[in-house]
C-alpha cells in the first residue's frame, strides 16, 4: 500500500495516525519498528472496546522487547488488522501501509491537533538520535 508519510500525524510514543473521515487509523513509525527489531507477535485490541487517549490498547513483541501501543485519540475500536496475527512481520516491512494495527472511531477529532505533523516528528526524532 502506498502512503504519503507527509500526511500522517505522530505521537511522542512513535505511533502514526491517518485520518479517513471520522476514523483514525493507527500504526507504529518506521523508527519504532527498527528499534523493536523483528516483530514476532502483535496483540490486537478488542473490537468494540472504548479507549481513552493515552490508554494502552495493544502491544507489539519482538525477540528482545515488548512495547505498549497507546491510543492516540479517544474513541471506539472499530477494526483490528487481523493479517498481523499470522504475519506480524508486515509491521516491519510496511509500517505505514499494510502494517496498520487498528482503527478508532474518534469521539473528539479536536485531539488530532495535539499530535505532531510529519515535519515536527522528524525534528523530534533528530533530538532523540542526538542524545
Amino acid at each position: 500500500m502506498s502512503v504519503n508519510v507527509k500526511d500522517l500525524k505522530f505521537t511522542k510514543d512513535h505511533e502514526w495516525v491517518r485520518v479517513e473521515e471520522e476514523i483514525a487509523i493507527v500504526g507504529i513509525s518506521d523508527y519504532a519498528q527498527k528499534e523493536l527489531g523483528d516483530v514476532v507477535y502483535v496483540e490486537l485490541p478488542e473490537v468494540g472496546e472504548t479507549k481513552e487517549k493515552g490508554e494502552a490498547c495493544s502491544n507489539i513483541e519482538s525477540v528482545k522487547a515488548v512495547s505498549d501501543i497507546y491510543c492516540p485519540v479517544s474513541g471506539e475500536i472499530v477494526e483490528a488488522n487481523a493479517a498481523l496475527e499470522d504475519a506480524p512481520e508486515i509491521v516491519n516491512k510496511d509500517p505505514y501501509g499494510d502494517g496498520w494495527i487498528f482503527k478508532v472511531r474518534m469521539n473528539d477529532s479536536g485531539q488530532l491537533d495535539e499530535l505532531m505533523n510529519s515535519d515536527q516528528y522528524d525534528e523530534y526524532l533528530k533530538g532523540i538520535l542526538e542524545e
Partner: protein
Amino acid sequence: MKQLPELIFNKSKEGKVGYSFSETELSDDLIALDVVHRREDIKDFPQLSEVEIVRHYTNLSHLNHSVDSGFYPLGSCTMKYNPKINDKIASFEEFSAHPYSPLKLVQGNLEIIKMLEEWLINITGMAGFTLAPAAGAHGEFVGMKIIRQHLSSKGNPRKVVLIPDSAHGTNPASAHFAGYEIKEIPSNTDGIIDVATLNEHLNEEVAALMMTNPNTLGIFEKNIIEISGALHENGSLLYMDGANMNAFMGIVKPGELGVDVLHLNLHKTFSTPHGGGGPGSGPIGVTSELVKHLPVPLVSRNTNSNRDGDIYHVSYFNEGIGRVKNFYGNFLVMVRALVYVMALGKENLRKVAEDAVLNANYIRKGLQDLLDLPYTSKTFHEVVFSDKGLNVKTLDIAKRLLDFGIHPFTVYFPLIVHGAMMIEPTETESKQSLDAFIRAMKTILKEAEEDPEKLKNAPFTTPVTRLDEVRAARQLRVKWERESESLSR
C-alpha cells in the same frame, strides 16, 4: 561434530520397555473408580528400552557446556565450582524423609536447617533467617512482603520502592508482586548511588530502596551506611540484594552496613549447583525487629527438652507474612550449602572473596587496554566492559568465545552500559584459566579488527550454529507433534 540426538518420541516403539517393577498380587476387579474418570491411553507417549534412554541422555549431556567442563564467567551468577562431596552428603537416604514425618523422627534434618541458619547469621550479621524461598527472586518477593507487613503494622505500607537503574529485572518484578510501584533512581558517574540523588527521591510514599551490593557493575556501594541512615530517617527500609555476596563474604557483614532485609542465593555464593536453571534457594535474613514477620514454618531449638527429649521444634503459625512455599523449602539444597560452609571454615571463608576479587581485577587489568571500561571505580568480584569503539557487537564476541570452549560472559546487562560484557570469574579459577580467557579475548578482538564478518557468523565449532530466535517466537513450536514436518533439511 556432535549432533543432536533424535527426539525420544521418534525413537519410541510399542513394546519397548525401560523399567523393571514387580507385579501386583491384586486383581483389576478391585478398581473402584467411575469409568468416566478413567484414562484409556496416553496418546503418543514414548516407550524406549533402558539402553536407549541411557544413550539418549548421555548424548544430550555431551552437548552442554558446564562449570565441570570449562570457564563460565557469567556476571552476577557466580558460576563457581560445585563440590561433589556436597552432592554425596545430600544424597544420604537418611535425609530424604517425608516432610510430614513426626518431628521427633527427623531431628537430624531440623538440626541441619538450624545449623545453616546459624552459619548465615554469623556470616551476614542479620538477626534471623528463613530458608523457605526457592530462589533469589522468590526471596526478593518474600523480603518485600516482610517490608510491607512491617510498614503496615506501623500504619502505612506506603506505595513506592526505589530501584537503581543497574538493578536485575527480578527486583522490580518482585516489588511489583508485593504490591509496590517502582521508581528508578540513576547511578552516578562512579556507578553507584549517592545520597543526594536518594534524598531527591525520598518522600513519605517510599517504602524501601532495593540495592544490590556490590552492584551489577561489580562496584561496592560505598555510601550504603549513609543511605541506610537517610532511609531510616524517612521511615523507609533498606533491602539488599545479596546475589553478589561472593564479593565480600567474610570481609564485611551486611547487617553492620544498615541493611534491614537481605537475600542470599545458595546456588551462587554457597556453591550449590545451578542445574541448568534451578533448583536454587534464596534465604532471607532480617534485623531483629523484623523477625516476627518471617514466613512459616520456623524451626527453633529448645534448650530445655520436653518429655520427648526433642531439641528441635517447628512452628506453623506466627504473626508473619504466612507461607510462601510448600513444606520447608529446598531442603537438599540447604544440605549442600551447609556442607560447603563447613568445608570452608574460618580458615578459608575469607579466601573466597579475596581470590574472587583478585581474579576479577586480574581480568580487568588484562583487558582494559582493549575494551572500554565505562566505570573506573574499584572492581570487586566482577567487571563490566562496554562495546564502545568496537566495530562488532558484544553478541558477536560472545558467540566467538564459544569456539574457544569458554562460556561467554553475561551480555547486555546491566542496561546502563551499552553492549555490556559482565565478567565474573569467581575464586575457583586458576591463573592459567584466566590467562587462557584473556588470550582468547585478545585473539577475538584482533579478529574483530581484521575480519569482523567472521565474528558475525560465529560460533563454528558448537553442535549448532546461531539459532533463529525470531522464527522460534513467530512459529511457536513448544512441543513435539506427530506428523509435523521436521524442521531440519
